[in-house]
């Protein structure tokens, strides 16, 4: 472009000729682009037509109307959206009377639930393992090394089956379940006491709850360390007050013949899937973190040491903040891949999106429509994750600031 422009300055006589050539180039360029798009659209249309006529010849109906049918099958756990009295849909437990669409929503809910927990836990565990691999302590360093190596080099599916059949299902049965302070650990699941709101709409309880919320937000986001500590203390005090004044109470699980009622629980299937995915992803994240720490100039450590910072402060305040700027995009990849890995839940009977799709496809016979919904759902989940990672990355790495 610039070469043409300078030559244009040299001889005005060439100018018109050049201009028309540039126009021709542009037209040709755009015509090619347009042509490629048209061919792709035509091909997709042809493909859709071929599929549709193929299905019609075999007498298979292609329609999404089955989504409104009553499901008629049960799902072992999970919440869904159902139209309630208010304008917004209510979040309720899935029941077989609901529609097939609700069953899909339950699947998306279960997949999202495991993914979000796994993203948080694997980031924490992965960072710890990654830093641990560079520890000065021989035992810690080698332990982290072997955990990471072992987990990274065995298939996730096998790890999942191991966690489920060899670990989680070895918990005691309900009759002889382990009880610790209201916590029940059994093969029917892990039950923890839950909080329930009994304050109604009394002003004192609502004020205390608001205070707790504000101080929790402060404890996480306040930039001053001292303030964060005060916020934590305030939250604890308000929480205690809420109990004393009868605004909230703990719901302890009670063991029944087959399972426990009350409290909240984590099913064995979810526990196994979460364990497998967290440990697996953490080992990949650990390698990313270790690589990024290794890539950091040695002078950073030396400078910190010469300022007299302890190793803990060096890692927490000098090394990790720089590392997180670099590794965030790789973390994003790992988050997306772990979200897709939750589809392995079917191996242990966890009702994630793909598992529920299997049931729906079999009970309704609409497997093609179902798989389109499943693929679109995973695509949207992945997009959401990559957008969030992009936003976090933009916040951590403002443009123009050198790394």
């Amino acid at each position, binding site marked *: 472009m610039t070469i043409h422009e300078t030559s244009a300055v040299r001889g005005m006589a060439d100018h018109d000729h050049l201009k028309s050539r540039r126009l021709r180039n542009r037209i040709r360029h755009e015509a090619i682009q347009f042509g490629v798009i048209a061919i792709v659209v035509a091909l997709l249309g042809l493909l859709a037509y071929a599929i549709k006529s193929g299905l019609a010849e075999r007498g298979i109906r292609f329609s999404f109307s089955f989504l409104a049918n009553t499901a008629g099958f049960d799902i072992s756990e999970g919440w869904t959206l159902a139209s309630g009295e208010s304008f917004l849909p209510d979040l309720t437990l899935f029941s077989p009377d609901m529609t097939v669409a609700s069953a899909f929503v339950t699947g998306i809910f279960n997949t999202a639930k495991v993914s979000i927990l796994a993203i948080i836990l694997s980031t924490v565990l992965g960072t710890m393992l990654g830093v641990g691999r560079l520890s000065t302590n021989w035992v810690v360093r080698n332990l982290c090394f072997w955990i990471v190596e072992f987990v990274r080099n065995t298939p996730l599916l096998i790890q999942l089956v191991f966690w489920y059949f060899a670990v989680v299902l070895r918990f005691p049965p309900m009759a002889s379940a382990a009880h610790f302070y209201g916590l029940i650990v059994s093969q029917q699941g892990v039950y923890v006491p839950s909080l329930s709101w009994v304050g109604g709409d009394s002003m004192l309880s609502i004020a205390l709850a608001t205070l707790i919320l504000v101080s929790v937000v402060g404890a996480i986001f306040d930039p001053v360390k001292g303030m964060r500590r005060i916020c934590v203390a305030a939250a604890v005090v308000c929480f205690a007050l809420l109990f004393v004044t009868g605004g909230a109470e703990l719901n302890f699980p009670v063991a029944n013949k087959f399972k426990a009622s009350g409290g909240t629980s984590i099913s064995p299937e979810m526990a196994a899937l979460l364990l497998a995915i967290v440990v697996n992803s953490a080992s990949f994240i650990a390698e990313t973190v270790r690589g990024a720490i290794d890539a950091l100039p040695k002078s950073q450590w030396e400078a910190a040491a010469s300022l007299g910072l302890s190793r803990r402060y060096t890692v927490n305040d000098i090394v990790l903040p720089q590392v997180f700027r670099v590794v965030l995009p790789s973390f994003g990849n790992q988050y997306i891949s772990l979200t897709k890995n939750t589809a392995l839940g079917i191996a242990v*009977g966890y009702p994630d999106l793909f*598992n529920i799709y299997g049931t729906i496809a079999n009970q309704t016979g*609409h497997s093609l429509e179902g798989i389109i919904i499943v693929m679109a759902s995973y695509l949207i989940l992945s997009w959401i994750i990559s957008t969030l990672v992009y936003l976090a990355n933009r916040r951590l790495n403002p443009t123009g600031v050198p790394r």
Partner: protein
Amino acid sequence: MNLLKILTGGVFAAAAFGAAQASASVLDTVKQRGVLNCGTDNTAPGFGYLNTTTGQMEGLDVDFCKAVAAGVLGDASKVKFMTVTDKSRFDAVLTGQVDVVFAHTTIKPARESSIAIDFLPVNFYDGTGLMVKADAGIKEFGDLDGATICTTQGSATETVLTAAFKARGWKDSKVLTYENLEKLFSALNSGRCNAMSTDKSALAAWAGNAPTPTDYLILPDTLDKSPFGGFVVANDSKWRNALRWIEYGLFQAEESDITQANLAEKLKSEDPFVQKFLGVDGGYGKDFGLADDFIAQAVKAVGNYGEVYDRNLGPRTKMYLDRKGTPNALWTQGGAIYSPLWN
């Protein structure tokens, strides 16, 4: 541009393939290929099971595959067993991956109305049952209120259980589904499942093959009936009719007392019915697109229905399911195994 060529080629090939598939009957495809691709389970003792000591597939469904191969191709060994799961079996037939599926599949309306498959006649009458660990103190279905009951994904049992809970007004009972019977049985053993639910024959088989069969108790309740049938892709009556009459042939052979052992003798029989039935003089095969001796071939390969039953589910097997007094007996003995008229 290269990519584009490949893409266009792929689409046209797919369209052409779809068209070619639609016009020819599976019967012609199988005869041309010379091998029958038969979908069976390999984890269901008595029906479709890989015997680990012999390395051979065994079971009632497996024998039906062999009978079809013998009837269509004249050679029972020309069959390739393809494993299907409860979940994959319908798609396997729809995509043409297998020609026919015999995989203890319950015949029910939704499957024929919305999955574009056609069922073959019932080859085993079963019912949905429940099995618990003998030491669990559970004696009948009524004891299971609030329990976790497990089954396989995509099975008819999934909806049968849900309906049974609803009928009794049970709110806390849960259905947990696994991929296959193997995982389901492990989950029962581990204690995760309070009960395992599937067809009674499969329950008997799993208990019978366990190291100590007395550890398990099959509850007396039958939640629903469960008639099994093979199935083929819909709208291919040429293929479906050929298979139906091979199956009826096995039923009729039992009724007419034609067995694997006396077949050679019967082939020399003077009885005009037997002569036509076995294709010695005339026969029924031609108009179906089969050889006239198709029934003789099938009986030679696996025996009549009664022999197939006894080999896989009879008194000498571990899972022994008595035929007497059940719908699985021949109609002449009060059962429901009935062949239409051969005339």
